[in-house]
């Protein structure tokens, strides 16, 4: 969400919490607001938006302590950087020392990790204030943020003026609150937390679209960096070969700021690249005429809503009209992606989940007839049906008699999918432009009519190929649907070309002027400049 106005000291002598990181950072430096004030404001907003169920754990005490430390640094004139004092949230599948890490699973309920994930540590080292841990689908397996033991996350847009105005009550018999829509997932808690202004940035994880999908549904920027650019150490894995920490922010510039603090080699993760990462500030593009934007025709997928299709082609026209070269390209193996992903994902899930046996940590069943029966009971009690289903199919694919037919074939298809991208980028295309989701967010009551597997299959279809190929991709909020819900588009870039990707995304963000969410709860807590916000709509 692009904020045109730089937060300024308002009549009430305070600063907006709706701003972007760079501006807040400047305000902190100038002493217009203190980290503690900022933190308290966010905590108050978390409380008043508790019904969203965005957070599993709110670490109020440690957050305030961190804010206090930050305040001391600002007073000494020695802040650690742009993130010092900035309130952030972290998806509850990243390890946080001293703060519960649950993966929204009974298996890890009450589990307190003794160490910080590298990305968490880097944020803390940069002075960021960790507000809490956000909700997700159990072990990040899902696309709705509806399948965790702490209940579903509600999309803040369900409570926006924009949505409320458009939505026609279905029937008198249904309770009013059945209209609320899902956030998408699995990083729905993080997306909702950013969308509802409870934090300035949040970490998600992205294995098949888990950052970009909820970002699209919640109207925020969601960046999935190149595989190997950011450390996975401390991220509880779903699919090691595809997982990347994701970044959810209010605007593209903020995503670049957070990326700058997280990227780079980690000796604790052998899959991170050795090259030194240079943090960058994004230039404001004025000329896109040298750009070549690829429109992959396979992303015109079955089930793509006409509304999204319209937004997508409008966006293509926007580039064309600005002088960019817009070409239709083909990624011919795209439609094999989902089934291939299913095999690889479940196989790795089966393997990664093997460690949850109740011995070293986490849930342990009371069953003690034998070690085997204890394992079985522990895993039955600790994992949901969705998790157990994936473990079962994964183990099936890995059986000696099936390995060649499923796993090896899926790996070969994965190679073909990755090569599709190599060919397209080799042909001179700089960036691919695609929809992020097939439609806008569905009401929860609709969503749960289909099971998790069906939903994941449908929802990952546009995002998941980028994970197969390890490419960077970003969701940029683009327009509101007819129902007043966010629609996002996805940009996919070349490996390790995050700067180019985000530069284009920033240009696009500026053009579309995505409207700001109108939330009563936020208004109450903001003394700033909300009323000055433009609400011009792109569509």
């Amino acid at each position, binding site marked *: 969400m692009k904020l045109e106005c730089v937060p300024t000291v308002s009549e009430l002598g305070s600063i907006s919490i709706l701003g972007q990181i760079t501006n807040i950072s400047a305000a902190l430096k100038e002493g217009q607001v203190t980290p503690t004030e900022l933190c308290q404001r966010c905590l108050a907003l978390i409380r008043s938006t508790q019904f969203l169920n965005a957070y599993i754990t709110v670490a109020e005490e440690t957050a305030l302590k961190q804010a206090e430390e930050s305040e001391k640094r600002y007073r000494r004139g020695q802040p650690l950087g742009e993130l010092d004092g900035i309130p952030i949230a972290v998806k509850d599948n990243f390890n946080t020392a001293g703060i519960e890490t649950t993966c929204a699973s009974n298996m890890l309920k009450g589990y307190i*990790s*003794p160490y910080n994930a590298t990305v968490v540590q880097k944020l803390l080292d940069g002075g960021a204030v960790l507000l809490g841990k956000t909700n997700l689908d159990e072990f990040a397996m899902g696309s709705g943020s509806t399948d965790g033991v702490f209940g579903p996350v509600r999309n803040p847009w369900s409570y926006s003026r924009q949505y409320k105005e458009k939505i026609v009550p279905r029937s008198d018999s249904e309770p009013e609150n059945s209209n609320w829509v899902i956030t998408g997932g699995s990083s729905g808690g993080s997306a909702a937390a950013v969308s509802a202004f409870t934090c300035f940035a949040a970490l998600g994880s992205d294995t098949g679209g888990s950052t970009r999908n909820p970002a699209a549904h919640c109207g925020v920027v969601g960046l999935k960096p190149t595989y190997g650019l950011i450390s996975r150490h401390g991220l*509880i894995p779903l699919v090691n070969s595809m997982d990347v920490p994701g970044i959810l922010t209010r605007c593209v510039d903020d995503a670049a700021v957070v990326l700058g603090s997280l990227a780079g080699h980690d000796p604790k993760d052998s899959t991170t690249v050795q090259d030194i990462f240079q943090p960058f500030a994004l230039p404001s593009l004025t000329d896109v005429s040298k750009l070549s934007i690829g429109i992959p025709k396979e992303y015109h997928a079955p089930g793509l809503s006409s509304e999204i299709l319209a937004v997508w082609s409008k966006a293509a026209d926007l580039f064309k009209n600005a002088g960019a070269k817009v070409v239709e390209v083909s990624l011919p193996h795209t439609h094999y992606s989902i089934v291939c992903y299913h095999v690889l994902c479940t*196989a790795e899930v089966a393997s990664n989940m*093997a460690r949850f046996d109740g*011995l070293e*940590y986490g849930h342990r069943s009371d069953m003690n007839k034998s070690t085997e029966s204890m394992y079985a009971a522990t895993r039955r009690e600790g994992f949901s049906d969705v998790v157990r289903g994936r473990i079962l199919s994964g183990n099936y694919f890995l*059986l000696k008699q099936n390995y060649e037919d499923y796993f090896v074939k899926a790996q070969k298809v994965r190679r073909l999918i990755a090569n599709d991208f190599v060919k397209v980028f080799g042909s001179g295309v700089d960036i691919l432009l695609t929809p992020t989701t097939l439609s806008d967010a569905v009401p929860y009551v609709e969503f749960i009519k289909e099971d998790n597997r069906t939903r994941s299959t449908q929802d990952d279809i546009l995002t998941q190929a980028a994970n197969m190929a390890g490419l960077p991709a970003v969701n940029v909020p683009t327009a509101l649907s007819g129902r007043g819900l966010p629609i996002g588009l996805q940009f996919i870039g070349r490996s390790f070309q995050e700067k180019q990707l985000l530069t284009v995304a920033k240009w696009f963000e500026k053009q579309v002027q995505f409207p700001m969410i109108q939330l009563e709860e936020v208004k109450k807590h903001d003394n700033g400049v909300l009323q000055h916000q433009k609400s011009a709509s792109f569509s």
Partner: protein
Amino acid sequence: MAARGCGGVWCRVLQRGPGGSCSASRPRRAVACNARGGAVPLGQSGLAPWAAVVGLEIHAQITSNSKLFSGSQVQFAAPPNSLVSFFDASLPGTLPVLNRRCVEATVMTGLALNCTINKKSLFDRKHYFYADLPAGYQITQQRVPIAVNGSLSYSLCKDNKMSQMVTKTVRIKQIQLEQDSGKSLHDDARSQTLIDLNRAGVGLMEVVMEPDMCCGEEAAAAVRELQLILQTLGSSQAIMAEGQLRVDANISVHHPGEPYGVRTEVKNINSIRFLAKAVDYEIQRQIKELENGGTVLNETRAFDSKLGCTVPMRDKEGKQDYRFMPEPNLPPLILYDAKSLPANVNHQQVVNIDWIHERLPDLPSVKRAKLVELYGILPEHSFTLVNEDGLMDFFEDVVKQTQMKPKKVIGWILSDLLSHLKQHSLTAKESPISSFLLADLLNLLENGDISSSAAKQGITAIHLKFSMWDSSSFQVFEELWKGEGKTPLEIVKEKQLELIQDQEELEQICQAVIDEREKEVMAIKGGNEKVINKLIGLVRKATRGRANPLLVKQILEKKLSE
């Protein structure tokens, strides 16, 4: 491949007794070896000969400061669970980081075993649930291991005679890097299992030997040679008693020319001596089983060292499907040689095969050849010197410090020192007699200051001081050795072991012997000159070995011709 396997008549015969019984003193039936290499059981007319096929899987713990994929220390017998990192306990979110030292040790071992080193190798996950395997899988190298297609030459003696050494070769299929598991300690009384993860994640090299051996002794000799190589390289301490070297034997029997029989895997073998026993027992068991019309089951058996037999292990979950999968958290392991080494590369980041190759120490076979060439000793002597822990260094130290010829020194080392050491289960490094003192003693002998029997008494006496069995000797030498800087010469003097240099004294003793032995003197004078040796012996006895035999002979001859 006739050169491999059990070739020739030298192979120790396969013996078997009534099956089931583990008694060591059971009647045995001889099984001879045919020329082609098979063991031929005699008797039971009309049956084709049996041949045994033995392959080995050997796990060697890599000597390294830290574990294969984590920074935890590696240490034997540390307090339980004191060497466990978050990764070793498989805390969620932790990732493996490959220890370069373990890779280098494995490359070194591969080169020493004449393997082809794969420039690119891969890691895999092998899944099974077990309490001491916290992640539910072991990281290993199933598809592409570091080293493949090697060979190991080893020697053993024919018919248990040191003088008849035979050299054989076993093919090395592969050497792979993998993680060790933790340890489960079962407390049956309280029906509890306690887990110690200190060992979890320690680097192992799994050396897979092709089934080129045919009896326990061959297997034992091959493992001993491997052990020596590992210790020479320093890639593993390879102490079986500490579990640093673990051997599983795959054993089957068949009639030569027919397909291999069903094999069993024998585990729980914790010494080389037991390996030979276990393999031979299992061969005999299988032969008996088949001859009685039974079948051999494809099963895992454990060696019971107390009973000296193998027993079926209770299979945990029947047939395991390990559901192998590539380890996604470790990129392919790339090794370089001089040619492929990129120009601008940080040498700390890469493993250079050629660099390691150039720095390989002398392997045991080379050491033996050098000993033979340098000192003119017999090949079988060089074998003992190298195979006995620390003996070669001891020998070379003694040689350096004495005028005695190495060929003579070797006799002292092998027959006197070694037998004393073995008697007390000591290694050369633990020898109560230092190489310096032994050299001193040999110098006295070489200078004619003492006789060899006196010198031997010296060795025995010095040794007894430590064995604490002979209290009188113990007291004498305790006193001697307490006084610092006492040399063998001083000991010899105090024990009056030096040769009698006084000609007159010697002549008197000789005369006394002649006077006592009228019968022998008559025989000599009658032409049976050999009898003089008896008189010489009597003189030496009278002098407690302190007489120079040549001198005694001269005196006696002179006196008898008078």
